[in-house]
């Protein structure tokens, strides 16, 4: 037994699989490239309106049913109609009139009418012999291409075709296809004609039942000529100049890596013989980008794969370098080996703040600059061996979910319309990243997910944070003085004025006569003082608002943690219940209640610890022993640590000492909870990389220096990120898992108590820091 393939199957592989004309043409262009042709010419001819053509075809097909006389009349009427609607502006129109007139019968005229609208793709590549046509061209899913070397013979090109179904995409464009081809040295052309309709006429026909055979064609004028011309007629739809222009701008222009213009595969694209322009990416546009990022994912000897890059914005340059746990975390892959299987890639992209775009010399006025940007923007395009992987970075595609992230963030910063860029892969280096059969992007697999998440991280996280930081710093730079500066300066000036006035009165006593002037000046000073105290009041209100905001955010985080815990407990409880065999219900019920009770106990314990976090208790400062608090918090997590296989130790210096604080208890708990939560996350990443890893957390309390040091043996924090970790929204966790607010809020809480939360530089090892220090200073 074997599969029997129906003739119609061919349709599923061609016309139905390919979703757009652009992709269909793209497949045929790739074939020309693989044939080592220096270029390809695509001609679209619309000599007669599509509707008229269809009408004529219909009339001419009914011909056999007519009487002799009617036939003659029918043919004549059709000839007239064809001539009348022939577009006389298309070069060579006269020849077509001759052809129409020369027709003797309906069949002849039908043949001419069908050819009037056509798409021609021609190249001067290696071409095919009769045998090639038979063996290779007519064998679907070509072993041909897989058996031959993946590098072309004369030009050494990386072969693009991989499935051997590209030629079937011609079906999408029209019902009839005529291939004229020849190898250099052959005496004549070889012709293959296919009528795709034939494959669908008989529903039961098997593929092998439809005869298709190449035949020798006309003699070649010059035997050395080689190449292939595919002519498609009975077009699937009507074509207009604007459609051609759109395809040229949106698809052909981006077919090759626009950042390497010298490698572009030349396409001559004509509509009714008029050249359709295929723009290239103006380098001036890139020069005017507001931010730029370039980087790569490549293997280093010591660290394995590293995601590195450089970002430039407003004259500031920032580099990033992510390896191992960082990569594991941000890509959220199951297994580190998957990252290795993604293989090396590089990327380069440019960000535009569309609001501050200006006219650009060479590109024109703002409107043109906007249009040019719109043409090229759309997120990151993807190129394999210099050829585009459709449709990534296209108008309707958001493969990196950039718009969704931008929308969620407000300000709509870093959406696709602001980005021009590309990522580069190769078929050799990234064998796991393969196209879907419909050429609509990469096939879904874990490697693709990892690839996408790394690129998304660079755009949506790394660049986003860098832009925001730089903007914030700029604002800070623009407001050089803080309120206390102004206050001091104002006071100084007040004193100066009063002194000067006194001097004046002393040296020019006449001034005294003008009491009103002096009074006016004094009055002026007073009102300045009043205004200043108003400002001070405002500032206090602002500070108050700020601490409230921090409280609120803290509550939010706490609720999240709680929810997580409750959820986990409930899950466990449910699982326990579901394991109870029905027959022993009564006996089991007791045990279940026991389990539930123990779960509830845990929950209650947690709730008790977190109780001070409730808003009512939050703002009340009280006196307490930090050692005891830390111990309580750690104990409440004991089950959690056990589950995560983390060994925790608490060391107090000097032994048995107490560390008295006056603080809002709930807030200090908040900081500790945050540090614990971060550590367990990163320790988990480390264990993913190395399952034998013995995870440890050490908390040291030094009563003499009033410091709490929190250390784990996880991956630590890269020195390059040390400034960023305390920034709001900084995170290297995958999307949805971290808000990047924990450390920011913890530091705010510390500040609120006059304490400090910092990284401990003494723990720096291999460029990474593993210890946080909470300096409690004067909080007694």
């Amino acid at each position, binding site marked *: 037994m074997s599969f029997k393939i129906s003739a119609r199957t061919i349709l599923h592989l061609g016309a139905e699989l390919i979703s757009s004309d652009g992709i269909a043409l793209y497949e045929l262009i790739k074939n020309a490239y693989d044939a080592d042709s*220096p*270029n390809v*010419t695509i001609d679209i001819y619309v000599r007669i309106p599509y509707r008229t053509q269809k009408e004529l075809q219909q009339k001419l097909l009914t011909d056999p049913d007519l009487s002799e006389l009617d036939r003659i009349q029918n043919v004549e009427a059709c000839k007239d109609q064809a001539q009348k609607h022939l577009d006389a502006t298309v070069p060579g129109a006269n020849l077509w009139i001759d052809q129409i007139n020369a027709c003797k019968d309906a069949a002849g005229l039908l043949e001419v009418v069908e050819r009037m609208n056509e798409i021609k793709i021609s190249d001067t590549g290696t071409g095919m012999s009769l045998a090639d046509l038979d063996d290779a061209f007519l064998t679907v899913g070509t072993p041909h291409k897989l058996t031959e070397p993946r590098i072309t013979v004369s030009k050494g090109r990386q072969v693009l075709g991989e499935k051997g179904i590209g030629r079937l995409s011609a079906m999408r464009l029209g019902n009839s296809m005529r291939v004229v081809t020849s190898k250099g040295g052959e005496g004549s052309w070889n012709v293959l004609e296919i009528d795709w309709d034939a494959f669908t006429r008989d529903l039961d026909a098997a593929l092998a039942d439809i005869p298709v055979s190449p035949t020798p064609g006309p003699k070649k004028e010059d035997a050395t000529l080689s190449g292939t011309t595919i002519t498609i007629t009975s077009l699937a739809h009507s074509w207009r100049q604007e459609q051609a222009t759109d395809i040229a701008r949106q698809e052909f222009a981006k077919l090759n890596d626009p950042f390497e*213009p*010298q490698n*572009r595969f*030349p*396409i*001559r694209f004509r509509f009714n013989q008029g*050249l359709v*322009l*295929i*723009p*290239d*990416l*103006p*380098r*001036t546009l890139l020069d005017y980008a507001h931010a730029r990022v370039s980087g790569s994912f490549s293997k280093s000897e010591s660290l394995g794969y590293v995601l590195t890059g450089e970002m430039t914005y407003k004259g500031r340059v920032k580099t990033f370098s992510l390896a191992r746990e960082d990569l594991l975390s941000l890509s959220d892959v199951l297994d580190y080996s998957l990252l290795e299987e993604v293989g090396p890639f590089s990327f380069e992209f440019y960000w535009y703040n569309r609001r501050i775009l200006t006219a650009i010399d*060479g*590109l*024109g*006025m703002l409107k*043109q600059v906007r249009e*040019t940007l719109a043409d090229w923007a759309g997120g990151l395009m993807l190129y394999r061996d210099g050829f585009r992987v459709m449709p990534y970075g296209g108008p309707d595609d958001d493969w990196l979910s950039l718009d969704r992230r931008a929308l969620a963030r407000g300000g709509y910063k870093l959406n696709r319309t602001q980005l021009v860029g590309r990522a580069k892969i190769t078929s050799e280096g990234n064998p796991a990243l393969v196209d879907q059969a419909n050429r609509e992007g990469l096939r879904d697999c874990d490697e693709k997910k990892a690839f996408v998440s790394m690129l998304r991280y660079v755009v949506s996280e790394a660049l986003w944070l860098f832009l925001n930081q730089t903007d914030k710093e700029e604002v800070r730079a623009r407001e050089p003085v803080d309120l206390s500066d102004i206050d001091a300066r104002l006071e100084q000036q007040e004193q100066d004025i009063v002194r000067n006035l006194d001097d004046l009165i002393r040296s020019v006593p006449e001034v005294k006569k003008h009491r009103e002037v002096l009074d006016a000046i004094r009055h002026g000073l007073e009102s300045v003082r009043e205004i200043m105290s108003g400002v001070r009041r405002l500032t206090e209100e602002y500070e108050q608002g700020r601490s409230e905001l921090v409280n609120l955010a803290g509550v939010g985080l706490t609720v999240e943690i709680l929810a997580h815990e409750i959820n986990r407990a409930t899950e466990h409880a449910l699982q326990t219940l579901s394991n109870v065999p029905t027959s022993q219900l009564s006996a089991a019920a007791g045990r279940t209640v026991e389990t539930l009770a123990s779960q509830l106990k845990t929950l209650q314990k947690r709730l008790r610890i977190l109780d001070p976090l409730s808003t009512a208790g939050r703002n009340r400062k009280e006196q307490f022993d930090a050692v005891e608090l830390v111990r309580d918090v750690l104990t409440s997590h004991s089950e959690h640590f056990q589950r995560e296989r983390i060994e925790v130790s608490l060391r107090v210096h000097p032994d048995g000492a107490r560390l008295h604080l006056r603080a809002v208890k709930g807030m200090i708990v908040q900081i500790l909870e945050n540090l614990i939560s971060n550590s367990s996350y990163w320790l988990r990443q480390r264990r993913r990389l190395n399952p034998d890893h013995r995870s440890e957390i050490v908390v040291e309390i030094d009563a003499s220096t009033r410091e709490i040091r929190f250390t784990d043996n996880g991956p630590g924090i890269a020195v390059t990120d040390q400034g960023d970790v305390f920034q709001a929204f900084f995170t290297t966790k995958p999307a949805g898992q971290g808000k990047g607010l924990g450390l920011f809020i913890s530091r705010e809480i510390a500040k609120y108590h006059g304490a400090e939360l910092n990284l401990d530089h003494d723990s720096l090892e291999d460029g990474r820091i593993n210890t946080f220090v909470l300096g409690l200073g004067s909080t007694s």
Partner: protein
Amino acid sequence: MANALLQPFSTHLVNRHLSQVAVIDDAFDQMGETALSLDEATEIWNLIEFDETARKAAVGYQILAGSDDIQPQRLSEILEHEPKNSPLRGIVQGSEFLKRITEGLESVEPICQLLASDLGLTVKKLGSNPAFGDLAGIQLIFLDWRLGLDNDPESIDRSAELAKKIYAESEEANKPLFVLMSSSEDVVQGSLAFRQKSELIAGLFQAVPKKELRDPLRLGMHAVALADSLAPAHVVQRFSDALIGNVDQTAAEFKEAVRALTLSDYANIQLLTLKQEQQPFGDYMSWLLSGYLLNLMLGPEMAAIRAGLDEADFQDHVPALLEPSSVLALMYHAAVFDMGVEPLLYGVPATAGKPPGKPTLNLGDVFLVTTKKKEEAEDAADEYVPAEAPPEGVVAEIPVADPQEQVTYSVAMVLNAQCDLLRNVPDDRSILLLHGQLSPLGERRDTGLTPLFVHPDVHGGQGASILWNFKRIAAVPYGSFYAWETDEQAKKKRIGRMRQLSALTLQKEFASDLTRIGLPVNPPIYQLAEVTVELIVNKGVSETVLISERQARIMPHKGKDRCLLTKPFVQTLITLVERRLENIKAGVQTSPNLSEDDLTNALANGTEWLKLAAIFEIKDEKKFFGELLIVVTNSSPIKALQNSKTILRVVVNTQDGGVL
């Protein structure tokens, strides 16, 4: 033939000493300096990239990897160095870029040709960055409206900048006029923006589509019109430059002077001069200061330039921009009326049952009189019967008011000498008030002594003429002025004051037995007219082909009308004559009285076209080209035209004139 046609124009130009013109157009730029559009560059790059041979050759011109590399200078080098059969050369030669350059030249070369051969002028062709040395002594410059790409708004700015620079750099005695030319018809609308950017006064340039300049007759007309304006335009620009240049200096001096006035100066003026005579202080100060300001602004330092303006002679040709600008109307109104006057103030306020005392009045105080329509008037529909017989020359009293409101407006002006109006004069002193009717602008020919008066209540703020009725004077006892002002049937409200010179003129006019004081001549109050062109097809059957507003201006002048047709309108008439000639040639139309030659001769008769384009006097009708074209006013009876050669009759209809 062409030469003969333009002979009168050519002679005219010689008489005006115009022998040299320059044509500045980016079509004359070196290829390497011509702007290249993105699409043009892309086209060339697409073709080079496709052709392996061309691509290799292009490397030699630094064209390596994209449309960024396609630059005009490099293309120019390609044409210079590449052999005849080189594909690269072929690509450049066939490109849209080169096509555009060629088309540009084709649009401007014929103009140069006509200027040189037909009008006998020396023509200098210059690119978009001309050397100023090349422009020395040239008085007429044909300037491309867009120096650069058509879709680039900057190319318009570039042209305005250049005009400004050329004007500034050229010698005082030889400042040029500009013809702003363009392949686009939008150039005419664009001229306002050009004026603002170039800071030239509107009359110093004229915007004309190139298409029009390629037509000999029309080119001749433009050249002559500009040549006529050359001398006066310079005087005017010099005057306005000097005046504008004077503003800052004047402002500074004026500020200084006002600051220098001490408190005691103010006190002296009020205490010593005014209080006794009860003259309002504010009024007096504004009179004093405005006089001083005027003297600073237009005083002795401007004398020489003013004298120059006196000599300006427009020789019956109103230059380029025909329509009087609205600014002129504003200026005129401000010169005659001070509208910043408060409603009347009475010396002693009214108390219960007792009317207030005497108000402070001034010569020239203008009151708006709101008369309630009488009941009968409503029955008599629109007709308003005046209470008294209308004075001579006034056809009928025209109510100027909103018919909805059932009121009519008129005005009354105080005629007493200033000294009669002090508040210490006896209560029985008569205050003389001259009555004036308000007539909507454009409704009548005789606009009277005050042709323009604007008030928001009157005629919807559109303006009116005041027809003073010297036979209708009210005499109100000073002590009863309040009663007159508040009369229920005809309420009055002071709304303005006629400035002294104008008010005195009316006063003297009233006292007609005394020597007259000449009113400063009114600015040209044209009536904008609607023109209707009737095409006389055959045997007097006419067909109205064109009705255009604002295409003619009528000025009453010594019993006759002076008429001026706009230049664009005359161009239209040329077109109509041309069309008739074509029709006759094609046999579409026949005219028994008219031969082909009649029309050909008319089209070749430059002198007559010039007459038609200049100001001409008209009484009922005026014939041109024999009887071929007749201009008639709407007041003249339409005559039968059976046997005439007339093919066009232009009816100038003043019924619906507008504000200036």
